[in-house]
């Protein structure tokens, strides 16, 4: 490597500092709002740091004071967890055999590309007929409807991710297992899956992130505590006449924690997942 000039080093230093500040400042401010008393946030000129941190919003949201904000937050949290984990489990259960099939048997890849395409079509193209179907089945405002729709969002993309990783597992090992009488499913379960375990974990975490983030369907198919997920609850909190910005911020901080923690574990497999369309924009 060539040594860099002092001027270049200074430029890098300034750019990195700007990058860190621009990335962290809005997030830090979100957290500060969540621990500032309402009077501190509405004071002009703004003081930025609260005189005394006030964690009462978090206590309210976790239902420790028994008010309405806590009830709706906890219900939304429960719905979000139920929907994300169920949809992820179903998507993997269907996606693993499908990915194996795409990886080991030639000639059907067009189908996978087609499904990837479908997953990217704007939801406005599906939302209305599904609304009518769910309404006839009595599934509006029911987590089951969201789980069904989310499966179609998670499936193409996790199948793609898994297929690429199954491609790297040598066929010979499987064939040996099948020779020993394990059968196709046995070979998948005892040979392929253990070898592809990191990919499996990555696909599951990606799927969880996508489901946790979804808003459009949840907005239209749910309307109260029975099925409303966190993104919809946040939109309600943010649009409501409630002027406690700290409370809204606290909800945001709590909703952001699980995906942020997951993303740190995902870092290594992040990029391959990103280019396969594991985006949430």
């Amino acid at each position, binding site marked *: 490597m060539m040594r860099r000039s002092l001027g270049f080093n200074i430029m890098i230093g300034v750019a990195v500092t700007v990058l860190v500040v621009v990335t962290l400042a809005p997030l830090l401010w979100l957290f500060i709002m969540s621990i500032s008393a309402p009077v501190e946030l509405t004071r002009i000129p703004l003081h930025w740091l609260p005189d005394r941190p006030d964690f009462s919003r978090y206590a309210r949201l976790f239902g420790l004071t028994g008010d309405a904000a806590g009830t709706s937050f906890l219900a939304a949290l429960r719905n979000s967890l139920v929907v994300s984990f169920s949809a992820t489990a*179903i998507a993997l259960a269907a996606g693993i055999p499908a990915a194996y099939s795409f990886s080991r048997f030639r000639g059907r890849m067009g189908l996978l590309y087609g499904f990837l395409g479908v997953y990217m079509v704007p939801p406005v193209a599906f939302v209305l007929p*599904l609304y009518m179907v769910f309404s006839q089945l009595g599934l509006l405002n029911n987590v089951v409807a969201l789980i069904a729709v989310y499966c179609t969002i998670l499936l193409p993309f996790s199948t793609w991710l898994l297929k690429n990783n199954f491609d790297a597992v040598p066929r010979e090992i499987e064939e040996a297992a099948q020779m020993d009488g394990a059968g196709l499913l046995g070979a998948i379960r005892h040979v392929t899956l253990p070898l592809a375990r990191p990919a499996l974990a990555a696909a599951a975490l990606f799927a969880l992130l996508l489901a946790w983030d979804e808003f459009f369907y949840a907005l239209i198919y749910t309307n109260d505590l029975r099925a409303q997920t966190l993104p919809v609850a946040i939109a309600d909190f943010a649009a409501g006449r409630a002027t406690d910005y700290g409370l809204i911020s606290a909800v945001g901080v709590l909703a952001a924690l699980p*995906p942020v923690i997951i993303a740190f574990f995902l870092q290594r497999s992040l990029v391959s997942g990103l280019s396969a369309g594991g985006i949430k924009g």
Partner: protein
Amino acid sequence: MSARRDRFQAWLLLAPMLAIMLGVTAYPIARTVWLSFTDAGLSGDSSWVGLANYGDALSNPDYQDAFARTLYFTGISVSLEIVLGVLVGLLLNERFPGRAFVRALMVLPWALPTIVNAMMWRLILNPQYGSLNALLTQLGLLAKYRSWLGDPASAMNMVILADVWKNYSLVALIVLAALQTIPQDLYEAARLDGAGAWTRFWRITLPGILGPLSVALVLRLIEAFKVFDIIYVMTRGGPADGTKTVSFYVYEESFTYLRAGSGAAYAVTVACVSGLLIATYILQLRRQGRA
């Protein structure tokens, strides 16, 4: 093993996925197309109207405006995300103290849920108590508090700001990964040949990241064109329809005005434009799969 048995097993393993995908997507798509030729409401009877909905959609000035706004949003935000993403990717590829930490930091905006991001910026841009107003006035850059999201001239740009802040990180991460695959000897050789930094960027760096970068570009275009969540939370399409994009327009047509037939026609036009982008993406993906 016979070819026939192979084929049977292949389809058998695909069956659960096919059942889910066809069950929950094929019918709705077909039904949307069918609805678009009728005057249906959300419930009740409907009759066939042929192409009338499409004629109305394409000649509706409000919809044309929404379309133009969507193109504006998509063009500006994706351009900024690509340029910033490349710059930050290059920066993170340099050596500096704390590099691992800064790289890890890049995951934060990407992982932040879209709705939380929108809500966070809505609070920052708040006209009375927002921190942007406070910061700019305390620095002496702004004389008095502004209503960033309440002014049709600035609202869309503020939505773009929030979108770019979150989504350029994805481009940066993809670019960084691509940069790490470029062999260092290429740079050494170019330097020995007397190539300047600028030439090295155009001749080595850019060709090296072009594949993944173009995938990121198309992905971002697809996502940006269907923008809805961030607008719903930040502005609800206002002020004076200043941020009403096509997805928002279709949503209102169907669920606020309850016109299922014409809503479906709008939805089909949106899906067709997306379809072009999606086809580009699939072609790229196949090309990269072969490479």
